């Protein structure tokens, strides 16, 4: 009996206490953010999380390095009715998928996100980069090539054209490419003489897909297929491959921070986006906290700050002029941004709608082709 009384009393106190916390500002005091780990997550901690916690001393942030499997994990959490994440960093294609599955919350950018300092609405400031109703873009990154400068044959000019990838006579050596059709198929068609704006209409057809695979087949024996972004910088550093594709930030850190004899080949770099999604169905207090954080973390200054730590371009137009110097090395970051005019002479824009439709089909063919 005594026990029951104590239990009731403490439950009542708990209710009062939570009630008080609610009355405070209806915001939870801790958040779980999901990101990619490594240098990228570090840049987010430095640029967003630390200043935010300074402004809100009572808030604690837990980081979970699960972005790689975010889609599957979020789906499993949702089915178990126990979503423990508050904000998840994913690439745009995953954001679209999560939105389609009803796992991410739809947002109204003008309401949720901060305006630019000059008063431009968030929707205009992010512009075309708002590729899904659930997606809050942070950075523009690109998948591009790096090559070993010391492995370019003597007397041959350094490669400036994406098609050096397929030219194993002029540039002998292994290549590393991602073990999935996305990007590789587009590059293959570009180098097979398809005009840039026709790539996706060619790739829609059976013949076009076969044509891309046939082009890739010409170098199949000299390709190492990677599945983690760190593979290509490692393979380049070890001299295992002559050239390879990866995310531009990875190459930046290999070239600038680790001083490897690697050079960038920006030609036909493929722009892609990374950003936040808010899981659907968060309780009100957690949602309020997340919305407060997101508004802060995606404002013009914060996005520009992130570029001090990693060479990815801020997703807001208004952030671009504010990009400064590297926090530790003190070098100008602008020339290392994928969006820098000098680097972006010839770029390729990833077509989200196309890959959402064709991913399963083309991936089946691509994997079957790899296994042959």
């Amino acid at each position, binding site marked *: 009996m005594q026990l029951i009384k104590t239990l009731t009393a403490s439950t009542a106190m708990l209710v009062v206490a939570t009630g008080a916390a609610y009355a405070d500002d209806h915001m939870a005091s801790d958040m779980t953010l999901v990101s990619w780990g490594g240098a990228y997550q570090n840049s987010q901690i430095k640029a967003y999380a630390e200043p935010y916690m300074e402004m809100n001393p009572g808030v604690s942030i837990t980081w979970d390095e699960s972005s790689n499997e975010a889609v599957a994990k979020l789906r499993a959490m949702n089915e178990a009715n126990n979503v423990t994440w508050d904000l998840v960093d994913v690439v745009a294609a995953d954001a679209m998928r999560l939105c*389609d599955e009803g796992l991410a919350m739809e947002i109204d950018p003008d309401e949720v996100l901060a305006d630019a300092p000059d008063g431009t609405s968030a929707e205009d400031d992010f512009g075309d980069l708002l590729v899904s109703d659930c997606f809050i873009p942070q950075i523009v990154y690109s998948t591009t090539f790096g090559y070993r400068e010391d492995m370019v044959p003597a007397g041959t000019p350094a490669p400036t054209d994406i098609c050096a990838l397929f030219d194993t006579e002029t540039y002998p050596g292994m290549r590393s490419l991602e073990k999935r059709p996305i990007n590789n198929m587009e590059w293959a068609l570009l180098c097979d003489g398809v005009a840039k704006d026709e790539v996706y209409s060619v790739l829609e057809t059976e013949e076009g897909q076969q044509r891309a695979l046939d082009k890739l087949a010409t170098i199949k024996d000299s390709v190492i297929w990677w599945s983690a972004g760190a593979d290509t910088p490692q393979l380049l550093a*070890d001299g*295992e491959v002559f050239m390879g594709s990866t995310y531009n930030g990875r190459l930046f850190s290999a070239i600038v921070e680790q001083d490897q004899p690697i050079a960038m080949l920006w030609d036909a770099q493929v722009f892609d986006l990374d950003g936040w999604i808010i899981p659907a169905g968060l309780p009100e207090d957690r949602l309020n906290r997340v919305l407060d954080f997101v508004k802060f973390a995606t404002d013009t200054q914060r996005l520009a700050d992130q570029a001090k730590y990693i060479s990815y371009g801020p997703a807001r137009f208004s952030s671009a002029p504010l990009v400064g110097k590297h926090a530790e090395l003190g070098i100008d970051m602008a020339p290392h941004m994928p969006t820098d005019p000098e680097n972006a002479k010839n770029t390729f824009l990833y077509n989200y709608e196309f890959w959402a*439709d*064709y991913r*399963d089909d083309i991936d089946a063919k691509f994997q079957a082709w790899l*296994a042959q």
Partner: protein
Amino acid sequence: MRQKMRALMLVAPLLIFVVVTFIVPILSMLFRSVENEIVPNTIPGTVVALSEWDGSTGQPPHEDVYRNLYIDLFKAEEAKQHTRLGTRLNYEQTGVSSLFRTTGRSLDDIGELWQDPLEAIDPNFEEGSFWFEMMSGTGGEGFLEQRRELMAAMSDENMSGDVGFVPSAEIIEMLPWTARAYTDFALWAAIRDGDTVAEEDPWESVYGALGMDLTNPDTVSAINSYNGAGASALQAAAANIDQLPDFGFREAFTQEDEDWGNAEVWATIKLYSPSMTPGYFLNSVDMSLTPDGVKMKPDNQQIYTTLFTRTLVMALIITGSCILLGYPVAWLLANLPMRTASILMILVLLPFWTSLLVRTSAWKVLLQQQGVINEILVWLGFVDDADRLILMNNATGTVIAMTHILLPFMILPLYSVMKTIPPSYQRAAKSLGATNWTAFWRVYFPQSVPGIGAGSILVFILAIGYYITPEIVGGTDGVFISNRIAYHISSSLNWGLAAALGSILLVVVLGLYWCYDKIVGIDNVKLGG
């Protein structure tokens, strides 16, 4: 009997724990390989209407199907379920994903094609309270419950509770489409959004549905003799049908996206409309379900049978090399003096305690073309610098790394079995005139077979399910079926296919276990003593 009960009670906690945390989740995951309820749940009316359609004519289905599709999709869009359905069907028919996504966005526009002229004919149609009064009545409780169940199945949410609305039986009879759309709207507004139905403006689909009803001449004559609530507005609409769009929903849909007129898309929807499907299992053996029956997939898409055979063959090779390498080590362990044996034992166990990823990455450093092994071979002059061995990113890499990783699982059972073989047997054999080899082969080896059996089963079953190591060192021809399962679980989100592949793998392993039992006998397996 009582004793049995008591024994059962004693093990019950463990039994319940195992069932709840292990068997139930696995079975529910495997059940996904045939489960297909998302299609009949999300577009129930369409599925029923579509069953009458004959896909072999190559003609798109009848207007009736499109009307059902509109009513079904509209509420699915409210619940954000239509894109999930699109993703599901996109596994079978490329392009359906964006078809559902873009159509979802334009469902309001389609409804407005009817809403605007209806409101122009009689402004009463703008009022939520007018609609409420017209649709309410008595006798529609059964209809309401029917729609409630459909809504709950579609949205996967609990739809119980008071709606504050009962449709009128007379209206249900006179305006069947409108009654469906309005009841769906009322359920959603009252239960999901917590609003009062009479104060809310109805969905655009309700206007579209009234448009559907008005195309029926019987309905028009019924309206003209109707005198309940809203009679004058309905009669005005019936009198001015010429102001409503002169096309049906088939045209409205095909105008939004011409794929809705594509018989192939409809054939796929029809094929996958039952709540159970063999489709995932067929896919996982490189076949596919088509309107003309089950067919092999085209050559350029066949992959799973190759991967299954490769997984089995390579797991056998790995098991074999584990026996070859593990047997002498286990023999040494069992026969050396205690002190030396324990040091050797630590050497066996040490890698066992190291993280799998670390060990695999270490193999990468050793095996790559500029790696330690190749460097040494080049330095010794065994291999030409331009012609270095390719030891990884292929099947060789997988076999080498996995043999190393799984070796302790072979050595430990072998060791514990060998430990129990009395050395006096071999001595006795030799004293009777056997050579060293005969004594080993005829006396020692047969006694160690149970250890080989136990080790082989462990290694083989572990090898079959491995995916991290093959992913890192396997390149393209050293990856296993588990890598595709992992891809479908975490990347393509095709859990049905992943479950089917997993089920097949499970059945294959059980089948092999059964064969092993028949050939070697499971009594011959010993993990120790």
